[in-house]
């Protein structure tokens, strides 16, 4: 792996870091919502390049991390007891359920497949007409259109043996949940660039107004991140709370019209439980009733009891930015990527895994 200092952009990043240090006269705490941004901040060593008074905390934007335990149990149950071909994204298969993960079901003989795209699952359904194919559809607004599209493809092709198990989550209600927590000390946000590429930015104006916080839509490359952080710090220093767009080369204010149309057609907004956080009102997508034939929850009668999380895992506090991963007593001890106690240690976008993989940087991070 190469380190940031080897990049062509290293000088630009360093210049922005200097500018952040010059601008920040007081301590500020900023949250990046998106797990991809967490990954990039940690992997590129950006956290320890920031001045001491600018502290980044990591948000709940890792879809794999916030998928509730009972949903994973449900998927495991479908794979093991209903004879379905269960497909999902790679990280999702590694997350431990209350008994085991989907990959462990696979090892025990269930037909579980890692796919790059939900559209491939529709093809698998076409090729296996005697089998039921279920796609475990997780993700934020960036991923939801692709999952919705798979349902439309199945419908167009007359594929009846395809369904999705939805566990979709939305960013703006998560920001509200973070801000409504009494222990929250977040003063500004980097909003997730690719989420806004789909949805546009209009949902974020009321949030910056309501909570009086700067919100900057930001990309995920090092230069994007440091620019986004500088824009938030500038606002904080001036006492402003605006919505700004650092990632305007990708994010148009109105988002992607076609994607939003597809979302609107296939999904409706519903309450959603977030692993480690609990129920957040109107924070997810559910298939509309017109598409109930493609809803694995309706197609298969799976009654899974809700089990409680391992009491040792403080993922809820980590996902809300109240604790850092290494402040968890289990971090690197009982909980490692090889044997994870909680979901944030599994996904590459999970904060715990990011801190673990780049633990050579931990000493410096700890001082922040």
């Amino acid at each position: 792996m190469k380190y940031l200092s080897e990049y062509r952009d290293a000088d630009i990043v360093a210049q922005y870091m200097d500018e952040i240090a010059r601008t920040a006269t007081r301590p500020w705490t900023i949250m990046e919502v998106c797990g991809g941004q967490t990954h990039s901040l940690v992997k590129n060593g950006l956290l320890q390049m920031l001045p001491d008074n600018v502290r980044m905390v990591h948000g709940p934007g890792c879809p794999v991390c916030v998928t509730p335990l009972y949903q994973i149990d449900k998927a495991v149950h479908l794979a093991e007891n209903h004879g379905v071909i269960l497909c999902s994204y790679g990280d999702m298969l590694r997350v431990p359920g209350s008994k085991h993960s989907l990959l462990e079901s696979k090892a025990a003989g269930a037909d579980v497949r890692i796919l790059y795209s939900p559209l491939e699952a529709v093809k698998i359904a076409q090729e296996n007409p005697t089998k039921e194919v279920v796609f475990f559809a997780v993700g934020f607004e960036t991923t939801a259109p692709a999952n919705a599209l798979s349902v439309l493809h199945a419908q167009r092709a007359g594929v009846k043996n395809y369904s999705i198990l939805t566990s979709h989550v939305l960013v703006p209600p998560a920001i509200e949940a973070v801000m409504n927590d009494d222990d929250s000390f977040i003063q500004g946000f980097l909003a997730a660039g690719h989420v806004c590429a789909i949805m546009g930015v209009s949902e974020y104006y009321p949030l910056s107004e309501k909570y009086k916080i700067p919100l900057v839509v930001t990309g995920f490359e090092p230069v994007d991140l440091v620019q986004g952080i500088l824009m938030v710090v500038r606002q904080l220093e001036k006492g402003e709370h605006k919505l700004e767009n650092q990632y305007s080369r990708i994010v148009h204010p109105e988002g992607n019209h076609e994607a939003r149309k597809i979302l609107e057609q296939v999904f409706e907004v519903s309450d959603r439980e977030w692993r480690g956080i609990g129920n957040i009102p109107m924070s997810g997508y559910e298939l509309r009733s017109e598409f109930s034939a493609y809803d694995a929850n309706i197609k298969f009668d799976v009654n899974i009891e809700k089990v409680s999380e391992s009491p040792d895992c403080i993922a809820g506090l980590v996902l809300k930015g109240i604790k850092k991963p290494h402040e968890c007593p289990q971090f690197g001890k009982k909980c490692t990527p090889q044997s994870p106690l909680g979901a944030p240690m599994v996904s590459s976008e999970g904060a715990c895994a990011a801190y673990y993989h780049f633990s050579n940087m931990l000493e410096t991070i700890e001082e922040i």
Partner: protein
Amino acid sequence: MCLAIPGLIRSIESRYDGMVRIAKVQFGGITKEASLEMVPAAKEGDYVLVHVGVAISIVNEEEARKTFEYLEQIGEIDELIEHTQI
């Protein structure tokens, strides 16, 4: 899984009785299929940002090249290669 990777549209075909445009998109040395339903203006030779098999926006060549290079440097393209082999 949240990554969107830029690639070059090599060819386009229609499926589902012409309702859907699917492209062969080249990411460095790998070619994969991507749906163009969310980028109706995209044409052969354009660069698109692809997320889980669906193009979500058209990008210019310079942007595509920079982002791809970055993703390659930090080893994020491996994920795409891994999935190609499965």
